[in-house]
């Protein structure tokens, strides 16, 4: 009994300190639980997408609820593993599977602009290009800019996780 409750306690602590509950939400601040996401957060926060789309709107599939959480869980566990093993590259690029998801999400929101026959003449080959390349092969700055190394936004104001120690304990230890 005692042994298994210690096990459970450590398990709960791990959940708490990793802010596991936050991963169920769509809040962009969740993504900066890992501080290496600061460039992605800061560039998004300075883009026009800030007002209309959060991280999950683009980076997880929205075709159905189960697929959303399956993909999120899969991708998230991979990220968490790499981050824990300190295996992150200096410049993070999106992988093929992820970029498929983002591309479909571009179309999901912007279908009006892409499919409207009145607009199809204004950009030559817009319809065809949608099939043979990714949106950002042309719209290259949207929304994060072209390349983001880990050190690309040294002084960005990003909501990084604060100390997990509760305020009352800090106050108590400060008083002593």
């Amino acid at each position, binding site marked *: 009994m005692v042994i298994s409750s210690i*096990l459970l306690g450590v398990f709960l602590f791990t959940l708490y300190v990793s802010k596991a509950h936050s991963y169920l939400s769509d809040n962009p601040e969740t993504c900066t639980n890992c501080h290496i996401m600061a460039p992605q957060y800061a560039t998004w926060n300075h883009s026009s997408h800030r007002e209309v789309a959060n991280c999950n709107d683009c980076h997880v599939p929205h075709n159905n609820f189960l697929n959303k959480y399956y993909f999120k869980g899969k991708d998230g566990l991979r990220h968490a593993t790499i981050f824990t093993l300190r295996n992150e590259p200096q410049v993070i690029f999106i992988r093929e599977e992820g970029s498929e998801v983002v591309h479909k999400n571009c179309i999901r929101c912007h279908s009006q602009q892409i499919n409207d026959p009145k607009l199809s003449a204004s950009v030559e080959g817009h319809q065809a290009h949608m099939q043979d390349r990714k949106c950002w092969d042309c719209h290259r700055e949207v929304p994060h800019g072209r390349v983001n190394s880990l050190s690309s936004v040294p002084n960005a104001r990003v909501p990084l996780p604060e100390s997990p120690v509760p305020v009352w304990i800090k106050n108590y230890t400060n008083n002593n």
Partner: protein
Amino acid sequence: MSSNFKITEKHPWLSWFIFSATIIVVFVLGLLASSIVERRAEAVYVNVPKNEISAFEPRNEVWGENYPREFQSYYGTADSSFRSKYNGNVNIDMLEVDPRLVVLWAGYGFSKDYNQGRGHFYAIADVQNTLRTGAPTGSVAGPMPTTCWTCKSPDVPRLMNEKGVVQFYSGKWERIGSEIVNTIGCADCHDPETMNLTITRPALVEAYERMGKDIKKASHQEMRSLVCAQCHVEYYFDKTVAEGANYLTFPWDKGLSVEEMEEYYDGREFSDWTHSISKAPMLKAQHPGYEMYLTGIHAQRGVSCADCHMPYKSEGGQKFTDHKMQSPLNNIASSCQVCHREEGATLMANVYERQDKIIENRDKLEELIVHAHVEAKKAWDLGASENQMKDILMGIRHAQWRWDYVAASHGGSFHSPVESSRIISTGITTIQETRLKLARLFASLGFNDEVPYPDISTKAKAQEFIGLDAEKMNSEKIEFIKTTIPVWMKQAEEREKSYDIAANN
């Protein structure tokens, strides 16, 4: 439970197995947890300054050693080469461009001198050089209070902290001339420890408190406008707070619209000055840039001041906020075009179109108010009584307040063209109603001629018309700049030598 015990009784090794397996799992889980703790702790060290910056450090150069990119871009505000159709960062003599202003501000400092503001870099030089602050000498006091320094320098929060806020607002402008030497900069908006945006001027905090709001609860995105709203707002000097103090106050108690502020001022029977021609109790709109912006479409879509005036900039693969605050028209690619995918020239034309249309009616309103001032003087000359003039003078006050609110909101015709037009049109209605009253008053006084519009085609003629001795003002100012300013700077240099951290340049 009992069955479990039975199993372990049968196989004593099993309990040992569970025991050691749990040790391993807890050990590994502990390792994972501490690894997470470590990586979380890294976040604390993402932004650690090279040199420690002490609280209230006013010298931008000291901050700049930690943040060279932001600092260098900040010095971009020294550039005075951009002139847009109406504004920009060139030192334009606005009284020369529009001599009607001289008459509208007759009896008030602005009729002496009013220039297009240059970049933050020149905040102190410009306030020292303007004729409005006069040429105080040891024996002759200047016309302005210390409060005029409030928005000019990060030395202000330092001084307020050292001496107290009321004490800061007390006395004449020249009293602290040697204390205020570092131009608007880092410590005006940033917390020296965390680098987060922070409010350093009491007036904004107090205005929020009186509205029942807590500025500490503002989000980061709101703060990216609120730090600007410490200064780019309508304000007045309240003389009733403390004896001898000109307490900087925002008139937001009833609300942030032009009418609500007017009601606030009327309720307190406050006036900035009495007009020297019409004797009307006037209000000077300062620069309600923030209030006007709030009524515009960009604010309604969540765009902050910094989004357009301080957009992201990339240099050698690093992105940072461009601290050269300036007209976005001088940087359309990084500001407007982040959201608007039109050609730069088209966007520029869109801005100018709004400005042209607002200024068309604004100029008309100016002309009508000049008429009203000289007509009111004529009425006094014809022997009108105070009672007969009361409503007329209030009409002039309200119309000019509305005109000034738009004129002084710098960029208001773009930030909020609809609200700007609305305010100008209420100004035109008010002043024409007032001139109708004036016409009826003339009739009762037996006068039925047109009061001639004065010849105010140049600044010099307009200043002569209101009785200003421009030559004397100018020569005194030149003397002041030559003799007093260098003394102030010398004293400041001596004082800063005693600071803990030396500036390296």
